């Protein structure tokens, strides 16, 4: 009989039930109070974090659910991104979304549950379903402004791309299953190795499987060349959802990548995969992502599109740590995603607030913002500088560790390229700051921020400064996750 250790999935079950509760609560109350639902949602996320602390460590359902340090670490990121996305969406809910407010928050929570299941998946089917559970609510959330053509287009585009990439991913996974005869990721690795010893030349089949899976997850990560959908979807979706897409769902993609590629396909890959191992493929893709993302971001006039291209570039930096496949590599990727959470969620939160007050997303309209709203301008500057990797903000430490891991693993060319593109990225991040501080005054509006958005901003800034100056605890935690893979 399999072991059903239900204690370990208590956080997920709680969050799922809480999502249902939110939807039912909104349906059941006569006087609609969007703020109350929002705070209830945030409370639910916080409670899940507590439950996560209480119930973790161990495996359940025959290795299909792993509550290991890696899962725990990424679940914290998911909960954080959901918390901040919900926190920054209060004004949008009040102003633009008149119907189905409960479902808005409910779907955000559903997506988060999906990410959490995904992070814990020790088996291909659960991993795939977790991935779908992550993305399907996001399709709907992206199209939540039903009257806005751009939003509907974003939802539709994301849906089509999502379905397409799922098909590719499934094909790759089915090849892996066909070759190994198991869906358990660890068993898969063993079986593939045995098959390699006993049968001649499974190299090509494995290569095909790897390319397919890489493409499938690449779409979810918006890794070049699978990034085409990202700018349009990011631009059209409600801004907090864009933030969730760029942090939460991306971190989910990263953890799925780790589970399959590091846990399932690494180790013997070098021996089998003549003359390519996936490290080299991914390194090339990472290089392409950094170049294309950063250069395209230069030309953007819309802050959401700019951040979309920037996040394409950021995932390139993450992949530098990933290809290292070492303790420092895995740890630095985790750390990077953790810092990215604060910086990117914060930047999107500012964009949300700005749009709620002015109705504009263009970078030019940020001109002179520092005069009317000095605090928010300062926050935005901190977020953007951290994304660029300026010390002493945490973004610097994150980039530093990732690059160190890359050099340690011998990918010197990639790190040099990353450094060069990071310099380029400084230009477009600084451009926004220049607009806010040095551009001639426009008749600007004072930005009003709801309390919840202020909380989000403060969390973001505090995270960046504290972990920039004192990265040890998070870094140690992140390095600890590497133990999962036996480093």
């Amino acid at each position, binding site marked *: *009989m*399999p072991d*059903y250790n239900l204690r370990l999935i208590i956080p997920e079950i709680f969050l*799922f039930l809480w999502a249902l509760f939110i*939807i039912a609560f909104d349906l059941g109350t006569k006087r609609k109070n969007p703020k109350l639902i929002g705070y209830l949602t945030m409370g639910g996320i916080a409670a899940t974090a507590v439950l996560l602390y209480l119930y973790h460590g161990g495996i*359940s*359902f*025959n290795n*299909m*659910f792993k509550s290991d340090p890696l899962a725990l670490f990424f679940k914290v990121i998911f909960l954080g991104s959901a918390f901040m996305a919900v926190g920054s969406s209060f004004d949008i809910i009040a102003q633009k979304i*008149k*119907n*189905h407010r409960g*479902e808005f928050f*409910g*779907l955000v929570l*559903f997506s988060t*549950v*999906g990410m959490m*299941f995904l992070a814990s998946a020790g*088996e291909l*089917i*659960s991993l795939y*379903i*977790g991935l*779908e*559970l992550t993305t*399907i*609510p996001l*399709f*709907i959330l992206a*199209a*939540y402004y*039903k009257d806005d053509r751009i939003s509907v287009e974003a*939802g539709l585009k994301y849906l089509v791309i999502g379905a397409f990439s799922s098909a590719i991913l499934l094909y790759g996974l089915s090849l892996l299953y066909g*070759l190994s005869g198991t869906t358990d990721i660890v068993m898969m690795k063993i079986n593939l190795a045995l098959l390699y010893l006993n*049968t*001649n*030349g*499974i*190299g*090509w*089949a494995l290569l*095909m499987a790897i390319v397919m899976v890489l493409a499938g997850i690449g779409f979810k990560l918006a890794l070049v060349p699978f990034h085409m959908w990202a700018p349009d979807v990011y631009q059209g979706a409600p801004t907090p959802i864009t933030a969730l897409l760029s942090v939460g769902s991306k971190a989910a993609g990263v953890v799925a990548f780790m589970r399959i590629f590091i846990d399932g396909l690494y180790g013997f890959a070098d021996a089998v995969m003549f003359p390519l191992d996936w490290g080299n493929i991914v390194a090339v893709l990472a290089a392409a992502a950094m170049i294309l993302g950063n250069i395209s971001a230069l030309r953007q006039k819309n802050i959401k599109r700019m951040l979309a291209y920037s996040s394409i570039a950021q995932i390139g930096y993450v992949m530098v740590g990933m290809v290292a496949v070492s303790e420092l590599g895995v740890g630095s990727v985790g750390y990077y995603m953790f810092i990215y959470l604060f910086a990117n969620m914060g930047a999107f939160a500012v964009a949300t607030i700005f749009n709620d007050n002015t109705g504009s997303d263009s970078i030019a309209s940020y001109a002179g913002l520092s005069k009317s709203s000095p605090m928010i301008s300062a926050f935005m500057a901190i977020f953007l500088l951290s994304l660029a990797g300026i010390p002493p903000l945490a973004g610097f430490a994150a980039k530093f560790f990732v690059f160190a891991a890359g050099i340690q693993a011998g990918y010197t060319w990639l790190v040099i390229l990353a450094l060069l593109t990071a310099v380029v990225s400084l230009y477009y991040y600084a451009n926004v700051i220049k607009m806010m501080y040095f551009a001639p005054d426009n008749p600007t509006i004072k930005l009003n921020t709801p309390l919840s958005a202020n909380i989000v901003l403060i969390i973001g800034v505090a995270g960046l400064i504290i972990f920039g100056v004192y990265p040890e605890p998070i870094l140690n935690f992140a390095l600890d996750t590497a133990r999962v893979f036996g480093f």
Partner: protein
Amino acid sequence: MLDLIIFYFAAVIAVGAAVMMIMQRNPVASVLYLVVSLVAQAILYVQLNALFVGALLIIIYTGAILVLFLFVIMLLNLRGEHFGGKQSRMGRASKIAITVILFAEMVAIFKQVAIPERIGTQAAAVAEDFGSVEMVASHLFKEYLYPFELTSILLLVAIVGAVVLAKRDKTEKMEDA
């Protein structure tokens, strides 16, 4: 021998109909080819002793999902001319190129992997009640209980999402009335 004939018959129909499906401009014809392809695939499942899966394939896919497709297509009265003009030459060429590459890759794989040996070893390992309802059920509800239950969450989420997207907003309704 008979098995082999039936296999090739069904396999050729399954693949041929699938190809025809994507070649059609008329959506109803596409659905029909998909129906044919699925029925042929069901035959393949039956040949593999997976009677249950074969029956489910027909009941669920051809019997329910594709009827729904047909319903939608007919309700919207979609005809071939609704699907844009001709494709650009580049677009068509790139599609064909990708298809050819994938196909070549597949052939390469199947040549590389020593298929006959693998099938031989696998066939011997198949249990007596392979593919029976009991076997499928015990896999589904014992071994794979966790992903199975996850799927139910996924379906619930999809339903919530579909309702949100499809339900007419209250304000609109008033204007209509």
